[in-house]
């Protein structure tokens, strides 16, 4: 085999290195904090599905503690999330999410054919998203849960029941 030129090496390795870098970064973000389960609601109630993506938004817990742009979501590993004033140090909070982060419309990739059942479940308020908060305050999504179980397993159980 002829000696490989620098150009060929770079051309072949750069995409692989970038791919590996993206995977490592995603894994680090995934492991950067405790995992919380937060209830979700359909972002657009008329059309939760766009292609193979479920459109949703994180739900605020009920409470009168605060409202408006300075209100943050206090996440607790126990699952008892509350509203608090942003910037207020609260030992009970394992992580905080800004209002912008909570209200942001999000998408979750789902399996072909899973749309209608998931859409109905989320309309009924059975959906929750497992996520962690990265050090820079961003949300990193792990998995969709319906009635407390992973959505794929829920779909299988649901299909068997029917």
């Amino acid at each position, binding site marked *: 085999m002829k000696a490989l030129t620098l150009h*060929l090496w770079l051309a*072949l390795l*750069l*995409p692989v290195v*970038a791919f590996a870098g993206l995977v490592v970064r995603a894994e680090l973000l995934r492991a950067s904090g405790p995992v919380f389960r937060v209830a979700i609601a359909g972002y657009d109630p008329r059309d939760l599905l766009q292609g193979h993506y479920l459109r949703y938004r994180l739900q605020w817990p009920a409470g009168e503690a605060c409202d408006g742009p300075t209100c943050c979501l206090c996440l607790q590993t126990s699952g008892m999330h509350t509203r608090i004033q942003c910037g207020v140090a609260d030992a009970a909070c394992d992580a905080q999410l800004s209002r912008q982060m909570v209200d942001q419309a999000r998408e979750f990739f789902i399996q072909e054919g899973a749309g209608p059942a998931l859409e109905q479940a989320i309309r009924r308020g059975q959906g929750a998203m497992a996520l962690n908060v990265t050090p820079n305050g961003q949300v990193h*999504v792990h998995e969709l849960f319906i009635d407390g179980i992973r959505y794929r397993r829920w779909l299988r159980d649901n299909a068997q029941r029917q």
Partner: protein
Amino acid sequence: MRLERQVQRWQEAGIIDAATAERILAHERRASRPVLLLAIGGLGAFAIGVGLIAVIAANWGDIPRLVKLLAMLGLFGANAYGLVWARGRQQRWVTDALALSYFALTLASIALVGQTYQLEGEPYQALLLWLVVGSLALWLAEGTFAALVFLGALAVTGAFVFDPLVDLLGHDRHARILAHASLGSAAVCGPLLVASLLTLQRRRPAFAATYERLGWGMFVLAASCGVHAWYLSMNTNDVREAWMGARVVLVFVVLGLWRVQGLVFRTHVDWLLPARALIGLAAVVTGLGVLVPHAPVAMLGALGFVIVWALVAWCGYRAHMMQMVNLATAVIAARIFIAYIEVFGSMLATGAGLMVSGVLLLALAWLWVRKIRLQPGGTA
């Protein structure tokens, strides 16, 4: 069959003898490729490929993340091995196909990470990363298709990057105009400027030739549209905004005027002057149309269009590209015919317009037949 009929006609006309006819037919039969067989085979392979992808996609959610990521690494490895294997071989198309595949695989790998980890980034970030890390693989290819794919990828990325870029500039109107002018000028003059690079011409002649053809096409199209600015009325506000972007456009025009010499091969220096005249005059007519307040002056717009295409014809004539001359002549004739319709009004104006246009068309026909088509060596 068509070739056989042609060869028979040449033989009957006494142009070639029977032995030559036999040799031509034998040569063409050897050179011909089994197109139908290749098409059916290709269709079969394509169907299998799409079927495999569909089967994998149907079970995508059940495939563990690690398996997906390792499969992607496997695809990278197989494709890279193919590229190393194909290096230095006669069949350049194999390297081209594998390089294109590696480029596509790079985008697929970025999308895979985004999908498997449910990442919520913007599409432009993925596209920019793709261009940065994948373009070198495309540079391994040498064919025209790879050159077009790269340009397409650049255009798509540019379209996605534009809005975030303007947002980054802070929604400032001045910055927005500058961004528009830069992107527009780069789209019009970029391919020509890139094609004029000696490194590209030496290392990837097919890339340079493709970008040159595309660049001239883009420039003539833009100039043909641009001169029609004279059909609009420009008030002082429009002009003020146009002046904001004019500096950027001017830089590109000057670069074009300078670098056009890089497109002229030593044997065809004759068309350097008409090429520069085309760039310069098109820029001046369009520039005046948008940088000076005026009421609609349709005549100047139409005249500008004819000037642009007359210069295209001149370029083609000097470069001995008679097809270009013919095309430009036809476009000018069509434009003059459209001018008939534009001058429809009173009986007097219509009559005068028809006569003037008719005389112009006759003059054009005379010029084309006597001065161009019948030139010795002309291939029209």
